[in-house]
């Protein structure tokens, strides 16, 4: 797979339509964007459908998922008044892993001046990763170059040196499981321009240059999975997917409060909290509208206890992972939350307690357009996919148009 290009925000002349598709666990969401001059992204429409065939970010019922994706696409086409032929697709799931790799290359030319060919070679080396046979690479994202041990070189071309190294962040996943959503989308006669890990997409939607420089952790709290990405010094350092999400919160509540899952989901939305409100102890709410069990009461204290324990554990698992990678102290811009879980009352307070860092809810500030798409935290992934698409389009030769070149790369990987 080609290197994922996330650099240089060059200009594009013609405005293009780029579509992001997230087949999420709770919703299928299609975001339609217009990429204008200076690569400014303008979101012109959104299509949504309740997702029924997905668990933990992966498709378990193709027929249902297909119907939901079709509905969301149709809605987006109507709202944005465009015909959608191709999409940038978000992929996620417990099998999607991120890790860092280094490529090394000796500079061979007599004068030791680093050429474009040297750079290509070192990147090629960094990409030569020994993955298990059933895994495929989703992204190879360039971080920094090193020339003769000198750190943090952004572009070594023209420098003098004997050895050139490059650090990359690699995201990989199981071939079959990556292919499932691609096949589904193709079955709807839509092309997949490229795939992006949802964690990456969400972070692209939300983070500005400054946050990436200072160091930020983005956490997308979805229904089926919690995805996270760490940026520092302008580049992506770490990504991860935890197959735990809002569904787990609801499931815990259903179990603990002895109510059906759908009811637990509603109770969570109506009365949920990420931390235990001391005033709520021993307070009960009636499920008055419950025709089956009239007068049934739910203990709010229990509810918040169950919920806060799950959410705290989720944050702790992420904190441990990032701590192991030694990245906590690099997060000078703190933690940004997105995904539906970011709507949980007091979720920022809980995250602040766990990470001991400033925490904020993310907005898709790096794009403009349809108001609600930008303010709602759960649209970070689809909106970010537009951004991802815009980078990709920009990296590919201008004349060929976005589709063709990248599509060929996708085909090389997924058309096996």
């Amino acid at each position, binding site marked *: 797979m080609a290197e994922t290009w996330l650099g240089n925000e060059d200009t594009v002349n013609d405005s293009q339509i780029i579509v992001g598709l997230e087949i999420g666990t709770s919703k299928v969401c299609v975001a339609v964007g217009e990429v204008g001059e200076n690569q400014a992204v303008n979101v012109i429409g959104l299509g949504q459908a309740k997702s029924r065939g997905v668990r933990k970010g992966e498709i378990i019922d193709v027929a249902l998922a297909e119907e939901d994706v079709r509905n969301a696409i149709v809605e987006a086409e109507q709202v944005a008044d465009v015909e959608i032929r191709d999409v940038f697709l978000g992929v996620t799931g417990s099998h999607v892993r991120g890790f860092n790799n280094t490529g090394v290359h000796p500079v061979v030319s007599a004068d030791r001046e680093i050429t474009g060919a040297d750079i290509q070679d070192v990147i090629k080396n960094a990409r030569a990763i020994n993955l298990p046979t059933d895994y495929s690479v989703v992204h190879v994202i360039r971080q920094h170059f090193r020339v003769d041990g000198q750190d943090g070189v952004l572009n070594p071309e023209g420098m003098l040196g004997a050895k050139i190294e490059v650090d990359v962040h690699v995201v990989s996943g199981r071939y079959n499981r990556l292919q499932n959503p691609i096949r589904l989308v193709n079955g709807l006669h839509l092309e997949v321009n490229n795939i992006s890990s949802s964690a990456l997409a969400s972070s692209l939607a939300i983070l500005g240059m400054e946050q990436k420089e200072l160091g930020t952790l983005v956490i997308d709290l979805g229904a089926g999975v919690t995805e996270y990405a760490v940026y520092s010094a302008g580049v992506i350092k770490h990504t991860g997917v935890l197959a735990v999400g809002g569904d787990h919160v609801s499931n815990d509540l259903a179990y603990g409060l*002895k109510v059906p899952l759908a009811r637990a989901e509603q109770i969570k939305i109506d009365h949920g909290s990420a931390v235990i409100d001391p005033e709520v102890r021993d307070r009960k709410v009636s499920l008055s509208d419950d025709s089956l069990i009239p007068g049934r009461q739910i203990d709010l204290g229990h509810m918040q206890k169950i919920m806060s324990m799950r959410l705290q554990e989720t944050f702790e698992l992420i904190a441990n992972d990032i701590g192991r990678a030694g990245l906590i102290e690099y997060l000078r811009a703190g933690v940004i939350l997105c995904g539906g879980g970011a709507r949980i009352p007091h979720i920022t307070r809980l995250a602040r307690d766990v990470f001991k860092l400033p925490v904020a809810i993310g907005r898709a500030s790096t794009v403009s357009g349809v108001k609600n798409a930008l303010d709602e935290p759960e649209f970070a992934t689809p909106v970010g996919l537009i951004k991802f698409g815009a980078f990709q389009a920009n990296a590919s030769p201008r004349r060929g148009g976005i589709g063709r070149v990248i599509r060929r790369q996708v085909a090389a990987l997924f058309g096996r």
Partner: protein
Amino acid sequence: MSNSDKQREGANPTIGLIGLGETGVKLVEILAMIAPDGVVAHSLDTDNRSLSRCHQSRPFLLGQAIPCGLGTGGDSALARGAVESDSDELIEILRGTDLVFVVVGMGGGTGTGAAPFLANLAKQAGALVVGVAATPFDCEGIQRCNQATGGLRDLKQVADTVFHFPNQNVVLMEGADIALHQALEIANRHLCEAVLGVSRMLLEPGMLNVSFADLQASVQGRHSLGSVMHVEASGEDRVDDAVQKLLAHPASQGGEALKNASSLLVNLSGGDVTLAEMDAVTVAISNRSPSAKLVVGVSGQGNEEALKLTVVIAHAGKLDGADRESAPPKLDPNRQTSDLGYSDPFTVPDTGSYLDLGKESDGKNRNGFAYTPPAPPADALTPECREDLIRVAAKEEPNRTKRRKIIQELLPLEIVSKGRFEESEPTIHKGEDLDQPTYIRRGVVLN
């Protein structure tokens, strides 16, 4: 009001579930969520850790003084002491209950030691007592297995009947490659099925009722091992389908269990059960069980498409007070190991009890409750015979995964904690199953 008064008034019998030891507690927790209304669940253990996971049932710590919440470490004598010291409270718990299920995993300390004593208390309180017992996998070692066999015998001596599920049956059905947690899950389904099947049969409003009195008549005072099968089928051929599943059920032992039954309680539940269907089920079962007394009930209403078939198999055993027809077992103190297929309920002879032995002998046997089971009788199932049974069971479903599916269909546990994640890959992090509620894994008690 006495129990029989209540019966006369036509009220539903009160059903109590008592889970003993870690396994019993686990099962009772599941059952408490899905059992019909009117079933009261209690969890009893010597171990605080397992009680802290109780949310649906009422926890009770056995042996507050000793072993003071720390578990028995496999010492069943310690557990016996603990229940004995808690007799008064336990009698309170059991008071007024018509039918008591004593749910237990045999082989550890608590369950093995406490179950017979508790069953006896329940008996004395006037309840009909049904034991529901799991026994260990062969691979857990001969000592544990012997301990379990002893516990099972003792429980059977006092309980009216014991529904026994050897965990090893899962290995026989599914092969040894199955993951432990899956094997336990399957075993637990079968154990829960026994309790649920009987509870529903007794509590669900029916047109033709299988009543508490029917159950009483077929199991009271029998002191035998019985079994419960619960199958479901829908569609055109739901009766044929259900009967096939019944025969493939591990507890039916390839039809052998039906053949030897002394009485059978059969309950059909589902929408619009026709007379023809009733007839078909009755004929299919009575053909395979010519000598059994058969009671057939029909319950359920509405337009439920599935036909649910519950069959309680009771064996004659012996009646209370009747002369023991077989000689007391000859215990050979030198025999340390046994080729006993202890997982086979029918190799356990009907008489003698190590519990009694412990009391009657000079105390030598009490020490650690060393119990060496006698050799299996000649007519016990041979390995070849067992193979045959497995083949019979497998014949219906040559495909292994398909077979497993059927077994799991037997008991739709609607709300187990896995709930929504049943079909997806479990989220395991450092050996911990994150799909389970956090508060439960952290042992938080809500009350």
